[in-house]
């Protein structure tokens, strides 16, 4: 009789301790023996009773013993999970489930399970199969180890480390998404860190000529053409000029030249400008516009994007007082057509380059600079200056040398 009473008493105390522990912290909180004593369920002088209660709770899978830095401690587990444990048919399955449970959102590799439990492979396999059919666990993919078979508790979402964060979709780096965002970020920085003004003078001789004063120009517009104030010629003239007379031998692509909108040009902002966009502003913009409809990007993620652009040489950090902003590099060469106007081109599949390409130099523009057989080239060898097809192409010498036509061609 006393035994039954005792049993009831312990059952009561178990329930009480469990609910008290739940009151005092989340599932991840670790309770030491002292913590549990201090809950006031068990009188302080009776550790044996406490032990009994804890043992009972552990048997019910409601408490989990863990090793904490200060010694052994316990966490509580919710009743549904505990039920899952108790419903498992045997100890092996329970152990496998426990180890997967412990791995949490990172998931665990099946070989690691085998290793840790020191069980035979077929046993582990069986357990996993059973758990999978029951819907307790699910297999998952980890971007860091795409070839490893990993398992995770079915009701958890894989952690950022496992999925690779917001940049990954289905375990693959989502380059299209990244590129699109980079484009937006770059456009935002470009328009906010440079001043869009009118072009002062034809570019070709701007270095020599005095830029005309604004008032004077009106009279000099040819054929009564109505040009905007402060623009001497229409943009088409200017871009034609650029193609015909490459400045310092830098051929400007016709496409790039025509993408300039009418006589507009970006100017750098004066030193000490305070409003260069910062990462948090960019993050705010992305958040407000909601372009990333189901992915939330933290500031650190945006920082990663911005760093990428910096490494591309498209933007540079500026520090004004203690504010770190970003500004576009080489503003005067930037494309001035607004972002939305270029949407059509993008849809038509025209490659939308961010920013400007760096100007080439002698090395990259000589045929030798891009020659695939440069290292072999030697007078008297199979490839030599006297039979070089690339130079023939480049110089446009008509009656080409009777050399073998190369398969690839170089665009210079």
């Amino acid at each position, binding site marked *: 009789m006393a035994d039954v009473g005792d049993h009831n008493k312990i059952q009561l105390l178990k329930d009480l301790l469990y609910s008290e522990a739940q009151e005092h912290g989340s599932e991840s909180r670790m309770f030491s023996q002292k913590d549990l004593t201090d809950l006031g369920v068990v009188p302080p002088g009776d550790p044996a009773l406490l032990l009994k209660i804890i043992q009972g709770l552990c048997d019910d899978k409601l408490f989990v013993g863990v090793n904490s830095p200060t010694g052994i401690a316990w966490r509580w587990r919710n009743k549904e999970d505990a039920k899952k444990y108790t419903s498992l048919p045997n100890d092996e399955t329970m152990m496998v489930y426990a180890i997967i449970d412990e791995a949490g959102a990172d998931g665990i590799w099946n070989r690691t399970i085998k290793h840790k439990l020191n069980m035979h492979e077929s046993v582990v396999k069986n357990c996993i199969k059973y758990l999978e059919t029951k819907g307790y666990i699910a297999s998952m993919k980890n971007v860091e180890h795409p070839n490893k078979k990993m398992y995770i508790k079915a009701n958890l979402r894989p952690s950022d480390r496992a999925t690779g964060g917001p940049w990954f979709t289905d375990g693959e*780096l989502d380059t299209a998404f990244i590129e699109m965002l980079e484009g937006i970020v770059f456009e935002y920085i470009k328009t906010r860190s440079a001043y869009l003004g009118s072009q002062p003078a034809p570019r070709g001789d701007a*270095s020599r000529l005095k*830029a005309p004063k604004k008032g004077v120009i009106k009279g000099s517009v040819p054929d009564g053409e109505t040009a905007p104030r402060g623009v001497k010629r229409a943009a088409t003239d200017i871009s034609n000029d650029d193609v015909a007379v490459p400045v310092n031998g830098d051929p400007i692509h016709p496409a790039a030249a025509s993408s300039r909108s009418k006589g507009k040009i970006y100017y*750098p902002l*004066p*030193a000490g400008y305070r409003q260069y966009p910062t990462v948090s502003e960019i993050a705010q913009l992305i958040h407000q516009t909601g372009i990333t409809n189901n992915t939330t990007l933290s500031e650190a993620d945006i920082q990663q994007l911005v760093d990428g652009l910096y490494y591309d040489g498209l933007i540079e950090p500026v520090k004004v007082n203690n504010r770190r902003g970003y500004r576009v590099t080489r503003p005067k060469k930037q494309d001035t057509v607004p972002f939305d106007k270029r949407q059509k081109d993008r849809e038509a599949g025209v490659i939308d380059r961010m920013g400007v390409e760096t100007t080439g130099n002698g090395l990259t523009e000589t045929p030798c600079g891009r020659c695939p057989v440069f290292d072999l080239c030697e007078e008297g060898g199979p490839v030599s200056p006297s039979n*070089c097809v690339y130079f023939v192409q480049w110089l446009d010498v008509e009656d080409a040398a009777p050399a073998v036509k190369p398969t690839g061609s170089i665009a210079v």
Partner: protein
Amino acid sequence: MQVTQNVAELCSLLIDELHGELPSRIFRALLSRGRATLPQLCQYTGMSALQLRHGVAVLLQHNLLYYQIDDGHAMYEANAEFAYNLVRTGKILEMIETSFGPPAKDVMQSLLASGQTRVADLVAAYQEKINHLNSAMQQDDDEDFPDLKANGVNGHPHAAKKCDPMVKSTAQLNSIICRLVEAELIDVVHSKTFQSQPDVVKALEKEVTDKHFPGGVKGGRGKIEFQEKMAEALRKVRSESKSLKRKLEQNGTAAKRRKLFAGVAAANGTNGTTNGVHDEELDPALDPKQVIRINYEKCLVDLRNRRLVHFVSETIGDATSHVYGVLLRLLTKQLPRCRLDPSMDVNQDGEAVDAEPKAVTTAQILDNLKTAVDLSLGIGKTAMKEISSKSAEKISEFPPKPKLFIAEAEVDGEASADESDEGSSSDESGYDSDFKNQPASATNGTKVTFADGDDNPWQRMGRPGQLRQHLLLLAESNQHFVRHCGHDEWTVDFEPLMRTLREAELDAVIERTSGRQGLRLVRILRANGKLDEKALMNVALMRKAEVQQKVVQMQKAGFVQIQEVPRDNKSDVKKSFFLWFCDVDKSYIKLADNSYKSMIRCLQVLEVLRQKEKDVLMLTRRTDVKGREKDVMRKEYYDRYSRFQENERKLFAQVMRLDDFIALVRDF
């Protein structure tokens, strides 16, 4: 200068191009065999002594050889540096023309074409030419007169024809030479000019030991003292070539020089009108026996200035680049060379000797800036309240300390240790809260006031104010074009700046050859040091396959390097870490060598073209055809000729541009 196979070949090709095959063959033999006497040369080249003497004379005339006389036998040694400098002929002439006017260019051209010359010879040559022209003009016969010796130079052989002579009198010639000497672009030849640097050092070492350390150099202190004495002696030898300049300055020409400068500025671009006889008379006549030559070191300084100005106009804008040009001109007036020589210009602590802190004031720049430059252009306009003058006007008194990694601090995180030390004053905190109150509006550019009218503060600022704005912009730039070293004082730290410029050039090459992704990877490595593939992937936000493909491709090209770090001492390859890193100096060496080779190829292709068009070129060499090819030659022949000329121009231009790169990575 390190002479690699490609450099040697290039030098002999250049000499062949400018001075003919004979000197070129001798030079090639000297480069490949080291220093040699005449009989040895006979053996190496299989030429007769007479031929060799002719060739050596030409080479000596152009300072392309060093010689040393031992026991009555002259040993000759190739001077590869000067041989390489031949490629810069055109650039130097162009530079002289824009900064000193066409007559000065003409004088320089004759000097380049005839090598080192006595002043008297130069004057005589010009006198003859002037006489000839005068008589020719009297006869009203403009047909065929020799246009100096510049014919062979790849300039424009017809420049001097059918127009007024560039130099009208010997007095003008004298004044031009004086001016060039004062600018250090011309210096004098002295006995040590023909000794190679190691020879000079050896002779001086002996001299110093005999004089100051008869008992030998002993102890650490003795060594330091010896080095100091050596540096001093070396500096003395070097300054010998500046003797003419000093003499000119002794004659109290400072005031006159200013006058001349004003004259030059006025004459610039206006088809070389003379400065008036008055000024020329003031110049002291030069010693006719003085032998003069071009000072390439100083020319390089000016070429570097031009390069920097171009860089600024690329990155910031034209108006700013004009300001920068003036600033650089003022700053480098007294700068004899681009790089300090570690054996004489640097003391024990690695600091430059007698480097008085140079700075230029805003007022000086304003005084020298051409009035045609409109300073109100080139910088965007904003409301004054959006400018933090405290940050813009920040004065940094000392040059920046070299950083191991570029922009390391700037890249990572929001705030790193060295940023917080600037202290946030109440002004800033006020500003910060201020900013948070007004949320960032999503519309583009609304914060910038588009005030083009007269009421904008930009116009009210006046020219000095505008000038200051340009200078501040330069100082704020990430490249640190200018350092604001005191109130209204500006200076340039060339060394870090050139490093940045070199990196920018390297980036351009990488972007062109490996694409933007390649550039991204290289810049990540440069900013972060050594990284393994996984880290590289994460930072670059690129796929594994892409990263692998790109880095391997770039490793082949010499832009990135790889290092294997074993995990334990078993050094199992499978377990090793593989770290990628980027050694810019290696990249420069590799690219420079590629450039040399490309230059060789350009010249060789030109030779191939010449062979192909041999018959046409033979025709043009006839005296009755020369100078009026278009009228005399048949159309198809003339077409071929003009096409050849066009190709020649293209190839030479390309060689020059390749030299731009070499100059940047090697000399600037």
